[in-house]
């Protein structure tokens, strides 16, 4: 028998991976906010399906919700296609309306059943292990694990089977269309999966946190790699880390599990945002500083090199004060550029005179020839 804690972590991880798998494509296709829209509007699908079946555990609820997710996408596109509304405004009109209709229907006709909006928005993972899947008297584990496990498998197989198509439609929709892969079909298939995943997941984590798990891990992975399959694997990993870390945090603070998962996902994203090699803020700032210094060094050496060529009689040394005046740099900036140049063996200094070394001349020639390129390459 597994403890409820382990079961919760297991469910949370499965939810996180299922969300991350579809989330990768939302992030890459610039449709992140569609997850926000869908995760809210599926409520209307659930309510309508419930009115038809009168059964809260009926699978029709998931189907209804998935259909409403797709309808949301269609409505947003219809509104956008009138060319009267931008796409983001269209999203912002459609989902609050559908959500409002759902809330009105619930409070008017279903106030006495367990379908309150708090639970939908916030979710409660802590209760998930209480809803067991029992077959012929044998307890087979929490129901949520089976539902989310099934959704995870569907997502996984869809992405493995249509990996090539998804990749093509994501990165080059025109080429995909020429090759006979309909971007529209792929788009709607993906949106159906997003809807199904959102329904399954918000039962456990609530609709806002579906957004967190669909967007934050893939965006984190996006900062760490350029390869699609690595990005998918990394997103899944970040999702699992958020799930387990979030559970730990919730346990420690005695606070909302879903909220903690989102917080941990946010912290992991923040770390990647700051420290990702190449794409993080720190690496980016360092690269820009480096480029600025390189540019200054190239400017300095080119200036000296021209002078050497035009006035060979004077000798190859250059009075340092004169050089500063010619370049019109501030004293402090000039001093640090010269110091850098000497340290890198581009210049030699004797008393108040500087002279290019052979390495310095080479840089000047390259810099002169290549213009901007030389400034972006490491010396």
């Amino acid at each position, binding site marked *: 028998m597994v403890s409820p804690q382990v079961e919760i972590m297991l469910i949370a991880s499965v939810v996180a991976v299922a969300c991350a798998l579809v989330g990768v494509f939302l*992030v890459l296709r*610039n*449709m*992140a*906010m569609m*997850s*926000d829209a869908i995760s*809210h509007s599926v409520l209307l699908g659930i309510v309508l399906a419930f009115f038809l079946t009168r059964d809260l555990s009926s699978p029709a609820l998931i189907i209804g919700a998935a259909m409403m997710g797709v309808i949301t996408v269609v409505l947003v596109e219809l509104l956008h296609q*009138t060319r*009267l*509304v*931008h796409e*983001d*405004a269209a*999203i*912002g*009109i459609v989902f*609050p*309306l559908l*959500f*409002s*209709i759902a*809330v*009105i229907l619930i*409070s*008017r006709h279903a*106030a006495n059943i367990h379908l309150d*909006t*708090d639970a939908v*928005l*916030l979710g409660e993972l802590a209760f998930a292990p209480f809803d067991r899947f029992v077959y012929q008297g044998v307890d087979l584990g929490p129901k949520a694990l089976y539902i989310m496990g099934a959704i995870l498998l569907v997502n996984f197989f869809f992405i493995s089977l249509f990996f090539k198509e998804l990749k093509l439609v994501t990165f080059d929709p025109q080429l995909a269309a020429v090759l006979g892969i309909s971007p529209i079909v792929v788009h709607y298939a993906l949106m159906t999966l997003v809807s199904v995943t959102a329904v399954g997941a918000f039962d456990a984590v609530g609709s*806002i*946190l579906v*957004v*967190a798990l*669909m*967007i*934050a891990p*893939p*965006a984190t992975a*996006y*900062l760490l790699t350029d390869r699609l399959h690595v990005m998918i694997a990394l997103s899944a990993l970040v999702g699992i880390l958020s799930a387990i870390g979030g559970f730990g*945090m*919730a346990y420690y*603070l*005695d*606070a*909302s599990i879903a*909220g*903690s*998962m*989102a*917080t941990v*996902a*946010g912290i992991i*994203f923040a770390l990647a*945002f700051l420290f990702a090699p190449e*794409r993080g*803020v720190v690496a*980016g700032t360092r690269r820009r500083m480096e480029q600025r210094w390189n540019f200054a060094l190239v400017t300095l050496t080119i200036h000296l090199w021209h002078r050497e060529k035009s006035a060979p009689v004077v000798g190859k040394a250059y009075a340092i004060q004169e050089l500063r005046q010619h370049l019109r740099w501030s004293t402090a900036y000039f001093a640090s550029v010269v110091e850098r140049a000497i340290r890198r063996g581009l210049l030699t200094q004797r008393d108040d005179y500087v002279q290019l070394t052979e390495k310095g001349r080479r840089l000047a020639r390259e810099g002169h020839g290549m213009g901007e390129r030389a400034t972006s390459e490491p010396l």
Partner: protein
Amino acid sequence: MKELFLALFFDHTLRTVAMGAAALGIVSGALGSFAVLRRQSLLGDAISHAALPGIALAFLLTGSKSALVLLFGAAMAGALATWLVTQIAGLTRVKYDSALGIILSVFFGFGLVLLTYIQKLPNSNQAGLEKFLFGQAAAIVEKDVLLMAGLGLVALFLLFLFWKEFKLLSFDRDFGTTLGYPMALIDFVLTTLLVLAIVIGLQTVGVVLMSAMLIAPAVAARQWTDHLGIMVLLAAFFGAFAGVAGTVASSTISRMPAGPAIVVAVSILVIISILFAPRRGVIWQRGRDYLMRQRFRAMGGKKNG
């Protein structure tokens, strides 16, 4: 119908709530116009979600449940969220929409952590915090309306004061820069006003529906005019109209929540505008296409296909 009007004038509670909703509609309609024109429609959604941890932190730090303190916390968190979204989208390859999604959900998640933490603190009664989540229009009292109207007036006054600058920012930011205007500062002021508008509305319609209050009146108004001044006035009017219509509906129909009713009302205005607005509206466009085809045929042209 007549009773309704009488109720609106003489029923104290209904009048208070309707006035609050109207004030909210005016402010969010006017400021939402700029958000929609600047293609920042969903920023409002992100700000309203991000306000939650600000509200919870303000309560944790001060122990006060006074609306002004909580709104201040919400505004701070909203401003921080906006800044972070711009930084994430500006400094890395992560796109604007992903940045919105992350900030929206992570801030909200953290807010939930704080709320559930507060709930379990000994002798702290957190009732009142949660109304920011879903909005409780019916719980609005006169004091709230005064606060909303006061903050709203400040926002509208600033909007009036910086009208030219905001217009420049919305339509040609680069031109403004060349004229020597501090466009970053102007952007900051406008975004602060947006945050203010959202914070005013949270109490009434709640987190989820606040974004509709910003976007929908502006989108509806946009269809009727190409003039910014008229658009802002119309959006404010639509917002106020929807606010009053929603509260009236919720008081006359049993078990009709006010926030969603307001959103439905404003959405109906959007649908009407998109269909019927002269010149831009769908029906107008269709009619024009039809007339053009007729004229073309009359001139001896062939049907295509």
